[in-house]
């Protein structure tokens, strides 16, 4: 019964968070300083099209109709919620009209997921492994070297690191491409190798930066756990180091790392803004960037709504599976 109440409570919070977030997302851009119609008109004007004032006024009205920006805010809000709830349709992108927002997201999502999922998991596994060993045997040479590398890499500003990698591996030694150039038929070997080849440098830049954080955080956990009474008891029982580490320390040290990993995976729906801009990588981050620059309400709402829903869902899933992982919560 307690468990059911726990699950129901989490689900209610989840729904409320999502509705609140969608509402905020709808109103905030509309209360901001950007009118997408004016932005589009300025684009037309800056591209040299000659129209007299009457023609531009006609175009202005036509764009407002096309973009669905006519009517009061409440009318637009009602239509928006109805569309999202019933059809999960965010309408057409205003800056890339008439392409539907969902189509743009669908195209960008695999790129972001492929890049971030692989790099996050690699960094998570490597970082936790190295951090665990460093925390367990802090005075060994290998621990010191690995920790030293992590501490050196962690504070480097990402932008500088990514640029440095590009200069070294794309310009001085032309190993990887300077920009994303994907070729090959769908699901062909050429396409797969092309994607991996093009994603390697962006992924490496993420792994290098994130790796340091995992090392430092799990090392701190391990160092503290090592001194806990239950670990001392295990040692007195004569258990091997490997067994103590895998059965006593690791399960406790890894819990917060799993929570954080889940949030990281939820945040993937944000894309990796700087990585994608720097490497011209066609993911969600670039889409969000475009939406902000162009005042593209629909695209902005589509991408950020997805991110909000993903983070809320990831948090809810973690909340629901935590009792399975941590008996203290199960028994509370």
């Amino acid at each position, binding site marked *: 019964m307690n468990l059911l109440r726990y699950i129901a409570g989490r689900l209610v919070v989840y729904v409320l968070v999502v509705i609140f977030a969608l509402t905020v997302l709808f109103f905030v851009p509309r209360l901001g*300083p*950007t*009118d997408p*119609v*004016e*932005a*589009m*008109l*300025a684009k*037309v004007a800056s*591209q*040299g*099209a*000659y*129209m*007299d*004032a009457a*023609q*531009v*006024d*006609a*175009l*202005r*009205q*036509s*764009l407002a109709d*096309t973009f669905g920006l006519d009517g009061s805010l409440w009318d637009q809000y009602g239509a928006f919620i109805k569309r999202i709830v019933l059809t999960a349709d965010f309408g057409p*992108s*205003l800056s*890339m*009209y*008439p*392409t539907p927002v969902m189509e*743009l997201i669908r*195209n960008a999502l695999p790129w972001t997921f492929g890049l971030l999922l692989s790099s996050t998991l690699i960094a998570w596994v490597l970082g936790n492994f190295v951090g665990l060993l460093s925390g367990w045997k802090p005075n060994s040479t290998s621990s010191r070297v690995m920790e030293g590398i992590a501490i050196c890499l962690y504070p480097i500003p990402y932008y*500088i690191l990514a*640029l440095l990698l*590009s*200069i070294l591996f794309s*310009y*001085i030694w*032309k190993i990887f*491409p*300077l*920009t*994303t*150039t*994907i*070729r090959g038929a769908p699901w062909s070997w050429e396409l797969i190798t092309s994607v991996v080849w093009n994603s390697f440098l962006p992924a490496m830049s993420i792994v290098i930066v994130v790796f340091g954080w995992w090392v430092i955080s799990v090392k701190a956990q391990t160092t503290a756990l090592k001194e806990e009474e239950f670990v001392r008891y295990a040692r007195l029982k004569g258990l091997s180091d490997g067994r103590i580490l895998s059965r006593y320390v690791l399960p406790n040290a890894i819990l917060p790392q799993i929570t954080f990993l889940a949030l990281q995976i939820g945040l993937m729906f944000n894309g990796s803004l700087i990585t994608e*801009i720097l*490497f*011209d990588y*066609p993911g969600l981050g*670039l*889409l969000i960037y*475009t939406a*902000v*620059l*162009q*005042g593209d309400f629909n695209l902005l709402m589509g991408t950020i709504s997805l991110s909000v829903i993903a983070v809320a869902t990831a948090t809810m899933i973690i909340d629901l599976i935590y009792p399975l992982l941590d008996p203290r919560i199960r028994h509370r």
Partner: protein
Amino acid sequence: MTTTQFPKRRGRSTLMAMALAITLGGTMLTTATMPSFAQQMTDVGTPRAETLIVDMLNARVGNPTNMNMYQQGVTINQGYHQMAGALLYDIDTAKGSQIPDLAAEMPVANADFTVFKVALRQGLTWSDGQPFSADDVVFTDQMIRNTPALSYSSAYAAQIASVTKVDANTVEITTTKPTPRLAIVLGSVIYGNPFHVVPKHVWEKEDPATFTNFPPVTISAYKYKDSDPNGTWFLWEKRQDWQNSDVGQIVGEPAAKYVLFRSYGTEERRVLAMAANDIDILTDISPESLDILRNQNPKIHAWFNDFPYANLDDPCERGMHFNTSKAPYDDAKTRWALALAINAEQASIATFSGMLRASPLAIPPTTVLMDTYHKPMAQWLAEFALEDGYKPFDPDYAVRLGERLRSEGVAGIPEDAEALRNLLGVGWWKHDPEEATKLLKAAGFTNDGGPWLKPDGTPFTINILAPADFEVESQRLAFAVANEWTQFGVPTQVQQMQAGAFFTAENTGDYEVGSYWGSSCAITPDLFVRMEGWHKDYVRDNGTPSSSNQARYVDDELSALIDKLRAIPADDPQIVPLGTDILKELVQGLPAIEMFGTSKFVPVNETYWTNYPSAENYYEGPWWWWSNFKFIAAKLKPAAQ
């Protein structure tokens, strides 16, 4: 937002420039160890020596499989606009005049400019082999007119009443009102024009509101070959029947078999790509990046080989634009005071290290317009006096700036005064804080040793609206001017905005002072296209979007002059005298402090291709992103192997 520091973007740009310069130092091996031309392939599988690679304006394309140019939001500057499409009329930027493109000659009008005979170029075919004819033009007219879902439809129908076929190669165009400049309405003057003739045999089977036009059937010398589904590159291939294209008839056979438009993303990457010979033509970069490129690769050059490197013939100039409907900027004395509070030499150096051509007039100081207006008006400018008799013009601006730059060790600065004026401008307004103080006091401002107070008794501070993510010259100029005005005693800050927010603020009048181009654009001696924007009829209340005259400037005499200009065709002998009168009126009222032409740092790489236009080879301006780029591309020659 600060008045004493460079904008963040410049800081970042300088930092990146330094990082790039340091890291790239000593890496000339990269170019020295290149394999032979014949062996090299591009990463899209074409022979490098046969491929012209062009930087894509506005980076990657979000909807790459849509090339329906009539749908708002669809980008066609992935090469369709520059290489594959054609307009009825295009622009010769070196001469500053329009030329017939799909049309065989300029339109022939009746007496009241409402009916035009337009002869079409003969012998053209579409890329699928179908002939181009009057039927295509008539169909395009009908399609736009009868498809209200196309945003351009209502605007087009408001101007063009009908297009009818006279014979296979001639159409008659009727306008809704006297239109002495039909070629401007349906052809390019700056960048392009929304009126694209489409192939009837393709589009008549489709709904133009939803048709994606992909891959497109093209009319110019290149056809679509391949592209990246993510929109980072687009490959165009020379048509085998290039003789049947506009370019084939006007210029001849283009040498490049392929033209690859591609995005490299951030400026740092674009610079790396050109330094590595991976790209032949770049769109705008910063002067710091150009410096790196010139040092890295001897095959790279900009418009000038020496100072000021940049092309100075951009058709829009930059300056400080006022919302003249808002106090205290509604008083010309205030605007003049602020102009005289600026040290233009200092602003030029702070903005682009002096690599700018000054202009006191409301048109850019391009080569053509300098000869037509700036130089002939120099005498008038020297004699021009404000209400109090003060003569504000400083004809020695260029001479002083030249001396200063020379004394700072800048090479390539001419010694001759006339050459300096040709290079840096005929002159600008004096830097005279004393006269500025006098004018402000005459406008009702007070200053008793402390901060300036406005006529209503409140402190006088200025907020300059400036671009955040585009137009680097306007960004830097805003900070330079803010510094000048703060030094004069008026605390000034810069508010940077992203493009969408910036243009919303500009159009709705939600600003007091803005750093951008406003109405100050022109390329031909006929100034009508943008000067029309100063007409009082276009003034709207603040809060209501304005299509033109975002300065909300009302000047009856100026509006009357614009009406006179409107009534005559572009080749009328009164064009220049009327243009001159308009410019004089704008100097007197000074609704905007015009400052500098736009310096475009648009480098080219001569490793694979030569005969790019340049200051020494001025057959066209370096406008790679305009519709007339196809004529430039056709004149490029393969580099000696």
